[in-house]
Structure formats: C-alpha cells, structure tokens
C-alpha cells in the first residue's frame, strides 16, 4: 500500500464520493476503495479514484432521479426559500416584487388604489393611544383616505407643533383639499420665511385649473390673479425648505420604534423628487411668463431650483429591477411546477425537478438583485443618509412597473421571459432524465 501524497489525495476523493453516495452503492464504493490500495503507480491511482468517483456519482444521480417523485429536491428547495424568508432583505424584495404585480394586474386606477391602508390604520390607533405625534404624521403622510389623513395630521400637529410640516406633505399630495387655506395659514405661522406655504397654494390652484377644453382640445388657461399672487409670494420668500430632512428624520424614528421595515410603505410618504422639482420649475416659468417679473435668483425658492438643477428624466429600470420583478413571477411558476411534479404522477418528474431548481435559483436571484436596495434602506433608516434615500426612492418609484394594466409592455415582457425560462429548464431537465432513463434501460 503506497502512502504518497497522490495516493492520499486519490483515497480522499474516493472516500468523499463514497460518503455522499446512496446506501445501495456503499458496498461497491468500498470495493473500489479497497482496490485502490493495490494500484502502485500514483497517476494510475488518481485515474482509478477519478473513474470510480464518476461511476459512483452517476449511479447516485440515477438512483436519485429514476422512478421517484422528486420529494427530496422539492423539500430542499422549499426549505431553502423558507430560510430565505427569515432574511428581512429577501422579504422586502419579495414584497416589492409582488406589490408591483398586484399594482399591474389588479389596480385599474394607479398605485394609490392598492396600498396597505389597514396596516396604517392599526398603526394610527396605536399611535393615538400612545399620543405619539410622529407616528400619526407617518400615517397621515401615507393614508390613501384623504379625510382620515387630514384628521390624523391635525391630531399629530396638536400633539407636537414641530410636526406642522405634515400639512405641506398632505397639501402637495392632495391639491384639491378643502383644508388647503387652513394648511397654508398654519404653515405660514409656523415657518413664515419659507416659500413652501405659498407654493402649495399655487400648486393647488395650478393643478385644478391649468387646462380647459377648447375648440382644438385641451388648452392652457391663462393664470389667475390668485395664482400669480401666490407665486409672487413664493418667489419673494427668503428661503425654501421642502421639509424632506424633517420628514425623513421623523419617519426614521417611527420605523425604528414600531419596527415597520417596509421600504414601499416608507417611500409612499414622499413625492417623487425630480418630478416635484420639475413641477416647481414649470410653475416658476409660467409665473415669469405671466407676470413678466422674477425675483433675483439668490432668493429662497429660485436658489433652491438653481441648486437642484434640471430635473432628472424618468429613469429607465435597471436590470436589477427586472430581476426583482421577474423573480417573484418565476418563484410562483416554480411552485406550480413543483406541485404538479410532486403531487401528480411520476411521468412529470422533470417538471418537479425544474420547479425545485428554478425555485431556489429565482429566489436567490431576487434576493441578490434586491440586496443593494435593502442595504440602502437599512442605512437610510439607521444613519439618515439622504443619498441612500434617493437610491431607495428611485427603485421603488421609477423602477416599478410603470403603470397598471395587463397591456403593459413591460409586464408582458416579464411574463414572456419567465415562461421561456421555465419551459427551457423543463425541457433540459426532461432531456437529462430521458438520457438517464435510456442509459438505465440499456443496462
């Protein structure tokens, strides 16, 4: 018996393969191992070990897949996904993916329809009991029900006047609010030098009466005196603060205290930044056109616009967004195949195996693609870094499936891609099994 390094390596390789081979092959594996001691030449010993390992591995695969329902792979894949579900980043990614599909398939009026108001209402009740103004402001900025959100915002400000910024958030989100003047007055009293209180009034007048039906279709209406006055006051104000910093700091505190680690819910409380800046720029342009005058550019609102520059265009979805979106669809398809392959007949074993493999692969891809955003969200909440906010916001607003409806081209493309992947993997698995079965029959 030789004890050279190569012999030792050959023995290790064969022992390892023997260790993972099924019970029916153990005796044969031991026979191969015992013969290895009689192979004197090191290279021949290694060849012997490699050949035997391949034979054992092939026999193991054949024994594992032939004539059996893929219960073990199914259990392993489901177990792996259950373990992944314990990871917050994966749960967030899955939630983001599923919500985007819900919005695309079940919502006919846009993203406002299908948001978890029930969860927010439960939070509002808890916050009312605790007299927690920040949590009430968090709810008010996100509720779809405008009346309820106004009531809760007033409660929040009554508890803590430093939360008056919530009126600005609500006024921007709901330009047609009957409480607009009340909100503007309160904002002006709380923060008199800020252009924000005037801007929300102008924004509400603008959004309601910008266009009218003319003989050739929609026509731009001439600005009203009320709108010009509001814009004049906004451009005259010495500073402009959109309260983003205040809102984020308050929301971070609520997320950490109540454990609401949901980036979708978090982002829902913010107006998309570039679009908002674009709106203000448009307002200022219209004002200068209508009035012919503009305040010096060093004043609050104009300086803010200068600093924030030209609004970004709507960003194209990054590949990682597509991976997240296709991820949940692939997972759903995989589970379907898994159920068919394990519950139904042995003939569809390829579908079951495909389901098991694709379930693990798609869950991993979804997690890997979403992980940077999960990290960004975590850093945003724990450290309050505004650059992380932009990253999270851009993913959860611009990255989402743009608009609802089954005719959405991106949606159809995602469905097609997922279907092609599942069919291809099923076919490959079927061919592999066919090959294995054929080689078994030859025996």
């Amino acid at each position: 018996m030789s004890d050279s390094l190569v012999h030792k390596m050959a023995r290790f390789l064969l022992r390892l393969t023997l260790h993972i081979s099924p019970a029916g092959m153990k005796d044969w594996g031991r026979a191969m191992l015992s013969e290895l001691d009689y192979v004197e030449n090191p290279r021949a010993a290694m060849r012997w070990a490699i050949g035997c390992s391949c034979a054992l591995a092939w026999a193991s695969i054949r024994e594992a897949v032939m004539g059996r329902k893929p219960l073990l792979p199914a259990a392993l894949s489901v177990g792996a996904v259950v373990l992944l579900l314990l990871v917050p980043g994966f749960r967030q990614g899955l939630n983001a993916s599923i919500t985007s599909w819900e919005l695309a398939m079940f919502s006919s009026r846009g993203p406002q329809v299908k948001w978890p108001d029930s969860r927010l209402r439960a939070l509002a009740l808890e916050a009312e009991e605790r007299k927690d103004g920040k949590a009430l402001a968090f709810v008010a900025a996100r509720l779809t029900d405008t009346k309820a959100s106004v009531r809760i915002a007033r409660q929040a400000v009554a508890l803590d006047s430093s939360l008056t910024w919530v009126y600005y958030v609500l006024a921007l989100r709901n330009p047609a609010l009957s409480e607009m003047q009340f909100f503007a007055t309160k904002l002006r009293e709380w923060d008199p030098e800020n252009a924000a209180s005037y801007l929300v009034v102008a924004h509400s007048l603008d959004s309601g009466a910008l266009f009218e039906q003319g003989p050739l279709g929609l026509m731009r209406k001439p600005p009203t005196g009320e709108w010009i006055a509001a814009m004049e006051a906004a451009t005259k104000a010495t500073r402009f603060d959109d309260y983003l910093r205040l809102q984020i700091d308050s929301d971070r505190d609520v997320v950490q205290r109540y454990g609401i680690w949901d980036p979708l819910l978090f982002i829902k409380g913010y107006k998309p930044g570039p679009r908002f800046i674009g709106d203000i720029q448009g307002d200022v342009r219209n004002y200068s056109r209508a009035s012919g005058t503009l305040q010096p550019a060093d004043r609050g609102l104009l300086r803010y616009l200068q600093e924030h520059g030209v609004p970004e265009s709507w960003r194209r979805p990054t590949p990682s967004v597509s991976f997240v979106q296709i991820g949940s669809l692939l997972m759903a398809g995989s589970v379907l195949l898994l159920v068919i392959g394990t519950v139904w007949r042995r003939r569809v074993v390829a579908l079951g195996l495909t389901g098991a493999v694709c379930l693990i692969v798609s869950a991993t891809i979804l997690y890997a693609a979403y992980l940077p955003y999960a990290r960004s969200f975590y850093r945003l909440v724990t450290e309050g870094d505004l650059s992380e906010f932009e990253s999270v916001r851009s993913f959860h607003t611009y990255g989402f499936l743009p608009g609802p409806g089954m005719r959405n081209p991106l949606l159809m493309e995602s469905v097609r891609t997922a279907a092609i992947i599942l069919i291809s993997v099923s076919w490959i698995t079927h061919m592999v099994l066919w090959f294995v079965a054929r080689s078994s029959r030859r025996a």
Partner: protein
Amino acid sequence: MKEPRMSSQTVRLMEAFVSDPESWRYGYDLSRETGLMSGTLYPLLIRLTKHRLLESQWVTTQQGTPPRHVYRLTAKGVKFAAEKLKEASRATSRRPAFTKGHA
C-alpha cells in the same frame, strides 16, 4: 429482467471471465487485463451482478489489510457469456470486407 446489452466493453470483460471461469477475480486485475478504466469497469460489474450473471464476495488476502471484493461468473453467467461471445465472434466474422481494417 432484460438481458444486458453486449457492448464491446462487456464483451472484453466477459472474455476475461470466460478465460478462467472458476477463479475469483479482483477489480484492479480485471481492469489491467481488459484495459477498461475503473469508471467503465465498475458500472459493468454492477450491471452484470444485478442480472445475476456475476457473483461477488469479500475476501481477506493478508493479515492487516482491508478485505477485497472478488468476482466470478455464475452458472447462468457462464452460459450467457458462452452464447453471447459466440454471437459476437459470428458477427465479427460476417463483417463486410470493405470495413476499416479489412480493406
């Protein structure tokens, strides 16, 4: 159970066994005699054993060394090998003259 397919490797292995049907053979010796690699030899041994054409047992050759697995043809195996080797030799002798090696 269906008969095992007589590939050229199976024929070589059978020939090795038939040359001395009574004696027990070691796996490594069979590999050297037939020129078959371990990855080819063992699947053949497994198949032939499953078809009860081969019998195997563990034997201790020397004190202090692990036992070795040995193989020989069963009675059914001897009969099967004789038939199949005869068929194989007939097929070889009927090979057309223009095939490779006979031109």
